[in-house]
Each structure stands twice: as C-alpha cells, then as structure tokens.
C-alpha cells in the first residue's frame, strides 16, 4: 500500500479523521497526532517494511515529511 494511504487508514481508524484532510502539507499536530501517536505511526511503517527507522531521524512535522522519512525505509 502506498504510504499516504497507510497514513490515511491509520488516522481514519484511530482518530476518525476524514481522508481528504490527510494531504502532504497537512500538519500532523492539526490532525491530532501527538508525539505518542507519531511513534505508533512510525512503528506501523516499520512493521510493514520489516526494518527499523534510524534513531537519529528529524521529527516530521507534516504528513509529507513523515512519508519522506518512512519511504526511506523501503529505499524509494
């Protein structure tokens, strides 16, 4: 599944956020994603890709930044 779709599904499931609000420039905080939930989201991607994110990544502020980080996992 494409990364944006994964984020959308996660936020719809957990916070009932409508998918159209989840776009690349949307701020994660505005969508209700706090530091704990960001950890959960990153965990979700690590699970799907079967490999851990590096420990020294910069904390993403937007959906786009998050996807940039996690797509690094799959080498895309």
């Amino acid at each position, binding site marked *: 599944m494409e990364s944006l779709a994964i984020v959308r599904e996660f936020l719809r499931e*957990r*916070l*009932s956020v409508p998918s159209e609000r989840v776009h690349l420039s949307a701020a994660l905080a505005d969508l*209700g994603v706090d530091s*704990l939930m960001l*950890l*959960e989201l*990153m*965990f979700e991607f690590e699970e799907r890709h079967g490999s851990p994110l590096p420990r020294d990544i910069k904390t993403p502020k937007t959906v786009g930044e998050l996807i940039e980080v996690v797509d690094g996992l799959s080498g895309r």
Partner: protein
Amino acid sequence: MKRRRVVVTGIGLVSPFGGDALDFFGRLLAAESAVRFFESPDVPRPLAIPAVRCDGFDVDGVLGRALAGTMDRFSQLGAGAALAAWRDAGFATDDRSEKTDCGVAWGTALGGTLAYERGYRELWLNHRPRISPLSVVLGMNNAAAAHIAILFGLANACLSYTVACASSAVAIGEAFRRIRAGEATVMLAGGSDAPHAYGVVRAWEALRVLAPGDADNAPRACRPFDSGRSGLVLGEGGGAIVLEERDHALARGATIHAELAGYGSTCDHTHLVRPEMRGQLRAIAQAMQDAGLARDEVDYINAHGTATREGDPTEIAAIREYFGGRARHIAVSGTKSMHGHLLGAAGVVEAIVTVLALRRGVVPPTAWLENVDPDCSGVRHVAGSAERVPALRAALSNSFAFGGSNAVLAFRTH
C-alpha cells in the same frame, strides 16, 4: 480553628449490569447477582470461572475511540467511572481548564497487567520482535489517574495507590485527609481493575481462594458468611466518588450524598495473606474515633466479606470485639456476593453502596446467605433480601487487603 469537613457530592461506576450507580444499587437491593460463568478464548486451556465482567460498557461511545485506544482496560473502566462521578457532582465533563485545588487519588491492584500480558503474547507466542510503543503508557499503574486528571484539568496531586484489595478505600481515605488538611478542595477518588488476565486468574486459582462454579450455578458462587462458602469471584470494574470540602459544596448548591467523617488505616504486620483480627480492630477504632462516632450511632457495615474460609470470621470477630453488645444490632452485608471482588475497585464500589444505603435508608443483602457460619455470627446479617433501616445515621465500609493493610471508611448521613 474549625475543622474542615468532607462530603460526597458525586458517585459513578462502570456497572456489570450496564446501567448507572442507582440502577446498580437497585439491583443489589433486589439481590441480583452479576456473576456469570466466563470462558476465555485461550487455547488449549481456557479460563473457565465464575466472574463479573462489564461487557455492556460502551468504551468507544463513552470515551471516544481515539482516547480509548490509548488506554488499557483498567484505565477505560476508571475513566468511565470518573466521568459518571464528575457529571453527578454537577461539574462540566468537557471543561479541561486548570483546577489547582482539585486532584485525583486512584486505587488499582493490578494496573495495566493486561497490556503487559498482551506484550508477552506478542513476543513469546506470536514470535514478534517488538511490541507497540504505547505499551508503557498503557501498562503503568498510574495511567488511569493520569488520564482522569487530563480529562478534567485536575492540577492538584495525582496519586495512585496499590494496596491490593484495599487500594481504592485507601485512595478515598488519603484524598479525604488531603481535603481536611486544606491541601485540596475537591478530590476525584476511586479505583479500577481488570483482573481477568490469563496469568492473573491462574495465579488466584493456585492460591485456592476462587469460588468454583459452572454455567448453571455461577451466579450463586460467592456466599460470604455462609457455612458453605467457597471463596471469591474476580470481577472487573471501576468506581469513583467526588469528595469535596463541605463549605465549598454548600456554596455551590451541590447535592450532598453523605459526609465522609472518618478514616482508619492500619497494618496487621503479621502475615501476607492470613488476616489478623487485631489489625482490623485497630482500623475500625481509628475510623470511629476520627469520625467522632459513638458505637451506637453505627447502623450498617458494608463488610469486606470475600467469602474465604479465614477472612469472614476474622472480620466478624473484629466487629464483635469493637462494638461489643451493640454488634448484634448492626446490619452487616457482604455485597461481593453480587458484584464480585473488584480488587482495586472493591473499596470504592462498596463505599458507593454504603453511601446510597445511608441516603436511601435501605441496606442491600448478602445474597445466597442461607446458613450463617457459627464462626461468623454475632452481628445482624442482612441475608437474602434487602432491609429497610429507617433513620440510618452512620455506616462503615471495610476493606482488608492481602499484605495485611486495613482501611475503614466511616460515613454519616448529611
């Protein structure tokens, strides 16, 4: 200086019957048992015990799915109870503004044991390499208290007490002292537990104190003070009461359910599980003195009454010893016969029962009590059906824990 007095202005619980606190109390008056036969989905050896569960608790509906997803079951039960109590006290449940004179005191015996057990299953059974990053905040023992503080902006002390079966009675007692000492005006106090973790139930079974039962007789499994009693029934649940400084409650025109007048807290310091009459006696005496109550003012005692062989006679002996000739006139009931043993939530749920009994002038029975064990005689057992006690003046709620910790709460009508 005038001593500050503390009153109960809100009560709430998550009921195994599905309704609110008044519905719960009404069912106890009707001697209705919430105990059912419970079989877990575990393979190949499911749990198969009489148990009390809150299956009707609509977690997502009450808390919202986003919040509920960040909570272990014990926090969900706690937050549900706290919401009901806060609303009952007449406070806005959507007001998160900072309240520096309001705090939380919470009891739990097991905390987030279920969350940790889920982690073990993932790691050891499902061979997953890691577990959810929420595991720590789901499992920590003060999670329920912290969630409750966040929900209502309670910025005074936020404390959690783990004192086995007396946890929430201790939480209420310590919150009471905090208000009386002038350190807080309002305390949301209570407790919650979710004890049906696989390892937890197996541990209790190994201790040989769980009442046996099957699908037919499970509702009658727990029979405190009966000569045929066979042990306790583990129940999940949550309860909360709002304690408030009396003048503050009067000034805002709050409904006052009862006055919490005294609290006794002692330790047997003799044995981990064998209760000691003298330690319980000291707790009763302390609560009575603290409340300034005379022996003949107490009309009802909600007993700890777990229906274990050793626990029941010891408690009745302590009551007889303290009250002397008066003991024969005091109505005593063990409501665990209907709502089970809620561990960390037991003290608060029984405190709520005690408060409602005072307020309504009617005492719920010990269900299934047919033959009072001679070792448990000497008090006026309310057996089988509820009893009207006109002009109830004061009542005690006893909580006696493994580890030898004893907590007694003394309530007065207001």
